[in-house]
């Protein structure tokens, strides 16, 4: 079986002297949930823009449904990918429903008006993201969590087979982080979407995502099943930070340790090692 996205030997550089992505290969199967994680500057967002065709690879190929991304027209590509970038707030005071309706622009009739299917797709997206109750409100009046759900509603309304997201939970509290991932998981399981999300949250990724692509800042990368790829040693190496690993049942959790915690931990160890104190 071939994946819905196949990346083969991909390299990309913004400037000739620094290659940001080097010889990366991975595959995303249809209907799976992939997390892209890694330190700042590792090229996560760049990879997202390469996937959706906004940037062109320097070498290597990216195929979607067995065809190179570059061979699709812009409109055909919008049928494959819907992209949620960080804080895509429109320039003027559009309401929630107006903004979600923009995702249907390419389906509009020649007079520029939406059809009944368009309105239905928008309503379904609003229902799925639990945003229908503030459809008429301007986007600027919503909280961060509500707004992020609206952005996802816009992506769902585009009726694409793949959702690409760039750090969808970065400004949200715990409750809303979980709500966003629940929403994405539901879209994966109920609407059979393929989901690719850039994230800094290893623990949410390990709970929700089937696959992970861990990009290192030095050009190294690890890909595969989330459970097999994630380990304390590997995260320590990729992010260059001390990690504590804990377990709840089968689920593993990774907590970065600050300098003061590490020092206290070391002195505690010494105490327990020296019985005469």
């Amino acid at each position, binding site marked *: 079986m071939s994946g819905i996205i196949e990346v083969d030997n991909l390299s990309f550089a913004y400037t000739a002297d620094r290659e940001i992505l080097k010889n990366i290969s991975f595959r995303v199967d249809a209907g799976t949930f992939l997390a892209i994680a890694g330190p700042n500057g590792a090229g996560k967002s760049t990879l997202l*823009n390469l996937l*959706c065709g*906004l940037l062109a690879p320097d070498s290597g190929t990216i195929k979607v449904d067995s065809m190179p991304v570059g061979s699709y027209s*812009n*409109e055909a*590509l*919008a*049928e494959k*990918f*819907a*992209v949620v*970038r960080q804080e*895509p*707030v*429109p*320039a*003027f*005071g*559009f*309401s929630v429903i*107006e*903004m979600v309706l*923009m*995702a249907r*622009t*390419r389906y*509009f009739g*020649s007079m*520029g*008006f939406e059809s009944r299917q368009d309105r239905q797709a928008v309503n379904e997206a609003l229902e799925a993201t639990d945003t229908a109750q503030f459809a008429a409100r*301007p*986007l*600027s*009046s919503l909280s961060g969590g509500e707004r992020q759900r609206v952005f996802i509603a816009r992506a769902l309304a*585009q009726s694409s087979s793949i959702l690409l997201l760039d750090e969808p939970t970065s400004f949200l509290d715990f409750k809303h982080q979980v709500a966003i991932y629940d929403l994405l998981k539901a879209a994966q399981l109920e609407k059979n979407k393929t989901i690719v999300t850039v994230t800094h949250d290893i623990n949410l990724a390990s709970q929700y995502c089937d696959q992970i692509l861990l990009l290192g800042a030095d050009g190294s990368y690890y890909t595969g099943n989330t459970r097999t790829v994630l380990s304390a040693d590997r995260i320590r190496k990729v992010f260059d930070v001390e990690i504590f690993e804990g377990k709840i049942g089968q689920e593993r959790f990774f907590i970065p340790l600050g300098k003061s915690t590490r020092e206290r931990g070391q002195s505690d160890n010494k105490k327990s090692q020296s019985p005469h104190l």
Partner: protein
Amino acid sequence: MGLTVLIMVMMACAAVGTASISFRAALEGPGEQATVNPDYEILVNVRLPRILLACLVGAALACAGVVFQALLRNPLADPYILGISSGAGLGAMIAVVAGFSWTLWGRSPIAVFAFIGASGTVWLVWFVGRLTGRFHVTGLLLAGVVVNAFFSAVIMFITSIARADKVYDTIFWLMGYMTAEDFLTLWIGAGFVLSGILALFFIAPQLNALSLGPDNAVSMGVNVKKTRLIAFLVASAITAIAVSLSGLIGFVGLVVPHAVRLVFGPDHRQLLPLSAIVGAIFLIATDTLARVVIAPTELPVGVVTAIVGGPVFLVLLVKYSRQVGWMK
């Protein structure tokens, strides 16, 4: 609905003026060769052309303002932001100082040179903006601002070395100057402006999508390059036509789009047609004021648009912005 209001305003303004006329008398027709019907003459050959001109120019400037604001994703944008005004001004200045006295299709050299100056500036700004590459919009804006400043400096240079009486003509033009145009000019202008506005209606949904930024618009399947090219060319063309017909009338292109957006929302599919109508009504009304306030002399209409439009806009801003959140 809006069109009905427009027609009512046109009729009301046709009735107002230095000389009082009656519609009933005017409807009796042009009269015999010997006894000209003065009411008909004033209405049809003096006031009506000027009202139609104001209608045309107001609609063109308001629509161009909407489009430039959408294109540049900047609420401060107006039809003149990319230097069209100073280009046209420079053209007009050159025509006046050089003392041309010919006419082209009934147009004075001021109008012809203003049009050439406006189009040339647009081309220059677009060309420079394209060289700046991926951050096209920022490049365009900067190129526009700099070209604007440069041409304004050249205008001031010419002003300071030219003879005072010649400069006086252009100063009026720079403040917005409307006269009764002949019907041929009006029909040609109307043809271009109306087809331009119509073309803009067709890209209204794409302009909505562009408000999310070019990257997001592309990802939603919108042809951003094509939309931008059409929007830029059409908005520039109707602005250049408006400017060459009536001089530099400020404020309409900035304030009408905002006022309509504040009251009716930012969806371009209704923002464009409504702005066209409101822009037309606004300019007809202010031009009528300009005609009658210090009659029999006239004020430059650009002065009236700002004096009347400013306070009205501020009231709208305070009243509606809390509900609409238009800046975010």
